[in-house]
């Protein structure tokens, strides 16, 4: 396990070293001839957004961090995704019972974690409405959790629209699986 952690740190450090990107020179420094018009004056700057999900694990904390992540991961697996009907964000009775089960976990063994509700949609549309639909689904689950005693300030929400599918088949079964809210835990 230590070897794995050390290797991960080494890879992460190598990645970060390679990430920095200095902008390339702007085109505007080229001299313009008298009669020719300069067609393109846009700089070739390449903007790199650093992936914030890269975690650097310090050697001393490796055991504690590793254990906590495994605990969160195993607890997340115990909380089922909540599924929704086509174009809807209301919770039916079957899903309500799943939320109740998840609320029990969140109020007991997972009560020290922050809850992130991720709203998702099927593939029909990438525009804002679909993202809002995913968010309303997450909000419906949030309200249901609060009704089961989960504290409001532990819950955050995000919508990924159609961009986080669990499957990509062109089938009604796959579309139904993607219309969902997932539970994620944060430290």
């Amino acid at each position, binding site marked *: 396990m230590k070897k794995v952690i050390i290797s991960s740190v080494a890879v992460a450090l190598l990645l970060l070293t390679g990430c920095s990107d200095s*902008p390339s020179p*702007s*085109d505007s420094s*080229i001299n*313009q*001839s008298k*009669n*020719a*018009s*300069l*067609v*393109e004056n*846009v*700089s*070739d*700057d*390449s*903007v*790199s*957004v*650093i*992936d*914030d*999900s890269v975690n650097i694990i310090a050697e001393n904390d490796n055991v504690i961090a590793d254990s906590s992540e495994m605990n969160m991961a195993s607890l997340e697996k115990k909380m089922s995704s909540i599924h929704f*009907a*086509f*174009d809807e964000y209301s919770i039916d009775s079957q899903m309500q019972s799943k939320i109740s089960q998840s609320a029990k976990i969140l109020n007991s063994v997972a009560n020290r974690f922050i809850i992130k509700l991720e709203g998702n949609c099927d593939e*029909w*549309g*990438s*525009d*804002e*409405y*679909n*993202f*809002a*639909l995913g*968010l*309303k689904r*997450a*909000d419906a689950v*949030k309200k249901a959790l609060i009704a089961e005693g989960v504290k409001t300030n532990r819950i*955050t*929400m*995000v*919508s*990924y629209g159609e*961009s*986080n*599918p669990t499957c990509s088949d*062109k089938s*009604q079964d796959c*579309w*139904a699986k993607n219309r969902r809210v997932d539970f994620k835990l944060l430290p």
Partner: protein
Amino acid sequence: MKILISILMTITFIFASDATIEVIKKIDSLPSIAVEDGSTHKDETLKMKFFKSLVADLNVISLFNVDRRKFNNDFDTNEVDVENKNINYVLKYNLSENNGPGFSVEMKIIKNNEVILRKNYKISNHKKYMFVAHTIAYEVNNFMGGPSIEWIKRKVIFSRVVAPLKSEIVIADYTLSYQHVVVKGGFNLFPKWSSQKQNGFYYTSLNETKPTLKHVDTRSAKITSLISSEGMMTCSDVNANGTKLLLTMAPKGQPDIYLYDVKTKKVKRVTKYKGIDVSGQFMGNDRIVFVSNRLGYPNIFSKGLYTNDIEQMVYYGKSNASCTANGEYIVYKARESSNAFSRNTFNLHIISTKTDFIRRLTASGVNEFPRFSNDGDAVIFIKNYKNQSSIGIIRLNHNKNYLFPLKYGKVQAMDW
């Protein structure tokens, strides 16, 4: 009576117009143009790419019957190739090397052995050759008195999903021949140009604790975080002078439209419905159009920016989830199958806000995210059909559609 009916029918047939003949006649009446290449540049690949781009652009401006054959002819002479003696216009050009990087282009148009237009161009990056072709087509269009086609020179910015929760933001020309990835790493969506000059853009970053709206200055590569909101944060539209933004935010999980002042950074809530209000688009200085499910399904509404009057704009269809406005016209996306258990078709429609004019613009596939060009001549949109993601352009007054497929990934959102 029989004689009278016969006479009336005869008169009707004599004077009835045949739409098919009308269309053919119009095509035949367009002047012809041929392109002659007198380039001295040594790069044969560059010369062929430039030629193809120029011919395609001349076709798009829809003012000519374009001869797509390549003729090689000395640029300095005003004599045209013998095969082009009867062509109305001949465009000659010379693509030549610079002393430094890039290349130069001399261009002239010849009619009846006389030069009627002459222009010179220079670009410092040979990879951007297509922008020279676009500029030539734009200036030929202006010279010939065609309607505004400024969009042909503008850059398109789009987000492309490459894997679950991974995306890139790309700046391209309208044909996607030129593509430059400007934001990479993480999950970044909904790019939007921040000004007419296209020297900066906004985008939504989902890599932080909350969705965050960021601004990138393309000249300095500086990134600034502007505002965050739990749940959802997008820049739906920017006003003409870039001073105000329409945002969709959801501070308490409730998606609504907000007006953001770029200078003062003040936010004003515009809609207050408990369901979904998104995709605000400026319609003039004091009104917006937007998408709302306040009737139980997504539809298009308008509202005063500073008043509470709300008006339903579309009375057709049961799911109209995206829109764009220019002057009196609105283009919106309508779902034309309402079945969760089959492939859905989404088509674009255009309506007038002043008359009952309505017209369908697309026929098949999933067509969404329409955006008017600034001059109202064209609409750009996303088309997903049979696992192929493409950017489409519709020239409204010419009834012509063009599709430019992506080589990989799926277009999520875009602007031009």
